[in-house]
């Protein structure tokens, strides 16, 4: 899927982020090409969520540089524009708008931020609701849906903004076990269409299936990085070996 490009679509260069004294990201560098599927894992507090939140500017990094499509992402209007035109995000807690119906949740971005006509936005929303297989729920409110359904709506809401890259921040961590599969299926389907994605998750079976690059983080640093085959069978660092042995034990 990925075509030869002169520069990586996303460039992360020596990015550091502190929360008070705590160093959440320690000079992290990373390149992501269009079409790539990157899965990030690591213990909690290792900085994996912070990394994708920095890419989306939900957190502002203190040092280093993030470029999307060659444009520096910071608080500037051009940085915001390139971010808003290219990056979609799905959260652990879904973060649907509880006072709006499913359809209104999906239409809000296209209508208000993209200035799309209501009828077009409605068609677009229904199209993506069908892709996540819950078109019949369009008139309900988020609280009336199961966790798995809510997360699928959240994915559809992000897709309505036609992003080039999707960020997933532990999309199944808040779900009951029997609902994890339906969400992962939708993400996998999306990956198969060629969508570029960075996914923070502990679902290693899913990672094996979907990822073309695995990334292990600890203490704000990238400890290990490689294609899933070598990553799972022959990890180099002891820290990663220990993590994988614990997470894959059961």
């Amino acid at each position, binding site marked *: 899927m990925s075509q030869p490009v002169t520069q990586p679509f996303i460039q992360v260069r020596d990015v550091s982020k502190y929360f008070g004294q705590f160093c959440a990201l320690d000079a992290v560098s990373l390149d992501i090409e269009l079409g790539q599927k990157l899965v990030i894992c690591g213990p909690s507090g290792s900085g994996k969520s912070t990394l994708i939140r920095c890419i*989306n*500017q*939900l957190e502002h990094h203190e040092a280093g540089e993030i470029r999307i499509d060659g444009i520096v992402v910071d608080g500037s209007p051009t940085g915001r524009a390139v971010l*808003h035109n290219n*990056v*979609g*995000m799905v*959260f652990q*807690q879904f*973060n*649907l*708008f*509880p*006072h709006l119906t499913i359809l209104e949740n999906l239409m*809000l*971005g296209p209508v*208000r*931020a*993209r200035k799309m006509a209501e009828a077009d936005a409605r068609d677009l929303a229904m199209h993506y609701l069908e892709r996540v297989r819950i078109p019949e729920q369009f008139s309900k409110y988020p609280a009336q849906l199961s966790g798995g359904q809510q997360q699928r709506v*959240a994915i559809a*809401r*992000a897709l*309505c*903004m036609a992003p080039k890259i999707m960020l997933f921040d532990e999309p199944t961590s808040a779900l009951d076990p029997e609902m994890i599969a339906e969400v992962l299926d939708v993400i996998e389907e999306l990956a198969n269409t060629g969508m570029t994605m960075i996914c923070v998750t502990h679902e290693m079976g899913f990672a094996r299936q979907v990822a073309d690059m695995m990334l292990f983080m600890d203490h704000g640093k990238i400890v290990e990085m490689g294609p899933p085959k070598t990553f799972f069978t022959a990890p180099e660092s002891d820290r990663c070996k220990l993590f994988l042995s614990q997470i894959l034990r059961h």
Partner: protein
Amino acid sequence: MRFTMSKFWALVPSSLIRLLGLAGLISLGGCSGNWGWYVVNPATETGRQNLAFLIDGLYYTIGLSVTAICISICLGLLVALPALSNRRAPKAINRVYVELVRAIPILVLILWVYYGLPQVASLSISVFWAGVLALAISDSAFQAEIFRAGIQSIDRGQYEASHSISLNYRDTMRYVILPQAIKRILPALGNQLVYMLKMSSLVSVIGMQELTRRANELVVTEYRPLEIYTVLVLEYLVVILIVSAGVRWLERRLETN
């Protein structure tokens, strides 16, 4: 006697029934000739006229309160928004406004706006608009605090989701945050309306022909303060109980949604 009365109080906890009991007690006194209900007796021509004169003040009381609360809600929201900023200067502006306005007694503010402001700004201001302005400014500080608390109670994830679908600050507030915040603060807004209805009685001092002023004027001509002020108490009671019931109804409706 005192013993049985205190037992009676314990049996009827509702404040409304207490008040009726009190009224009954007072009317007993009427037998000894202290009462002169004739001033507001609807069976007589003068009584009817006096009652109509008193009740007509309701139009101003409600007009004044409702206009003032509409303005104070808008003003309060405007004052609350800078408090949510991460920067120091807007926050300081909010703090100064809230602390300053809260420190001024409403009665003083009414006098200042009506007698003082025309001299400063060399404009003439009607009694009605002076009252509205003073009540609205005074209440806006409280409204600002209510809005601030309501907006701050909305989960951070709602802002993050809005950011992730490219909404700007204005649209995030208008379509995501405020609809949820207003739903949460409606009971508090209802309380402010009740408070406003009561505070509007203070505007009587600058000659506003609302409920309290009319009662005062009638007392001067009829010299029956007990009866006339009792009617005044009942007037406020009825209006405020109706408003309170309305607020509770609204709350229940929002809960079921």
